[in-house]
């Protein structure tokens, strides 16, 4: 997998002049640096890193079109190379205590080359396609059982327990079933109209109607009643924000409407 676009254009003498690396997304700065080092046929040493620093900087300059975070990774490596180069050019006190940064880069490069080697070995296997395949299911059918498995002994108490559990779920015929008075949609329409008209000329909040409801079913019926009345243009409803309060107001045309008329044709929907 050669990343060089046009290796033939390198003029002799200026090694890798105009060097361009095709940059597939996976290639990071270490990859580029390692290729530069190997291209120069140098060992990975402090000296060789200095030797390829200019070429790396040229490469970084050509990265304008690449995503900023990818460039950052390259620039970080470029910075370390420049530091390395400056140290090789400037006289340093013999006992200068450096922070080991250049050595780190060399170490990292050696380690990265180990990864490349491992990847190359796996890639060769991948290329050959010497895959192994596992069976989809049992390759062999289990021997047929001569008879169904014997039944384990059970405790007789398990029978009583199973039956008691069932009977406790059966409603007792003698038990009283509590009946709640049903509230029809028609009745709710009347109630809503009464409340809204009672509040005129002010708008009435839906929450006020809701407070008068005994349970969730009644709240749902009340909401349904409001929708019906809005659809019939008996009420105007306004909600200024999501999940906000709903303001209800009787329309002008409806002020004289008899509740019986408003609810006419309404099916008597029970709330329960």
């Amino acid at each position, binding site marked *: 997998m050669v990343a060089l676009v046009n290796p033939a254009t390198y003029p002799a003498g200026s090694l890798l002049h105009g060097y361009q690396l095709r940059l597939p997304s996976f290639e990071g700065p270490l990859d580029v640096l390692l290729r530069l080092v190997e291209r120069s046929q140098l060992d990975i040493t402090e000296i060789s890193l200095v030797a390829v620093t200019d070429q790396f900087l040229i490469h970084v300059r050509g990265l304008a079109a690449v995503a900023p975070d990818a460039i950052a990774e390259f620039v970080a490596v470029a910075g370390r190379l420049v530091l390395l180069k400056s140290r090789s050019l400037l006289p340093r006190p013999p006992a200068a205590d450096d922070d080991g940064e250049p050595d780190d880069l060399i170490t990292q490069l050696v380690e990265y080359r180990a990864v490349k080697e491992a990847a190359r070995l796996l890639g060769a296997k991948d290329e050959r396609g*010497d895959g192994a*395949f*596992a*069976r*989809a*299911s049992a*390759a*062999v*059918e*289990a*021997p047929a*059982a001569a008879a*169904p*498995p*014997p*039944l*384990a*002994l*059970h*405790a*007789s*108490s*398990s*029978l*009583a327990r*199973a*039956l*008691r*559990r*069932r*009977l*406790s779920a*059966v409603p*007792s*015929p003698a038990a009283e079933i509590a009946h709640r008075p049903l509230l029809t949609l028609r009745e709710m329409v009347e109630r809503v109209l009464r409340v809204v008209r009672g509040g005129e000329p002010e708008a009435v909040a839906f929450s006020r109607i809701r407070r008068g409801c005994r349970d969730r079913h009644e709240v749902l019926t009340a909401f349904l009643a409001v929708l019906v009345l809005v659809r019939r243009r008996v009420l105007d409803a306004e909600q200024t924000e999501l999940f906000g309060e709903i303001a209800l107001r009787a329309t002008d045309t409806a002020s004289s409407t008899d509740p019986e008329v408003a609810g006419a044709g309404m099916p008597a929907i029970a709330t329960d």
Partner: protein
Amino acid sequence: MTDPTANTSLPVDQPALDGTAGVASADLPALLEALLLVAPQPPTIDELARGAGVDPAEIEDALSRLQERHGRGWVLQRHGDTVQFATAPRFAAQVRRFLNLDREARLSGAALETLAIVAYQQPVTRAEIEAVRGVDCAGVLATLHARGLIEQIGRLPTVGNPIQYGTTPDFLRHFGLGSLAELPSLGEVGGRDARGALEAAVAAAALEQPASS
């Protein structure tokens, strides 16, 4: 550790000379082993021939050579045109143990519940049992019958003459009972006498029965 079969004096054990398309005749039995291992269904001779890239006649030949190999854990089975592995009969006991085939079966919750209704309320019809359990019980009753735990002990003289079930002597043995009189007391459920609740539930079903069936 030296495996006697590793001594490959037989030409049959030579690896393939060409790994891509064809395969050496000597390696064909091993290739068939591989194909039989991954086959989702027992393959036919023709399917094996297509996979191996050889004639069906060569497959037949290789299969007979494969069959002759000794010290294997399997045997080849032919059903019509298809081939598959089966475990060697001499390992039947170990295979059954490995697959837990000899484990004792336990009655499911549904089976226990149905059996309990039959035991405490016999003779009882399927409709009566279903009235108490609220679900279809045909499958469970068939299982209990196949297990020899319940049997037909009569028929109701109503429309359709429904079968009445009762428990068998095997039922008593499986539950360690000397007689039906030794069935544990049902006690109370929800403040009611459980025995009475059961009878009431069955009686309610009996009232509906002539109409429903």
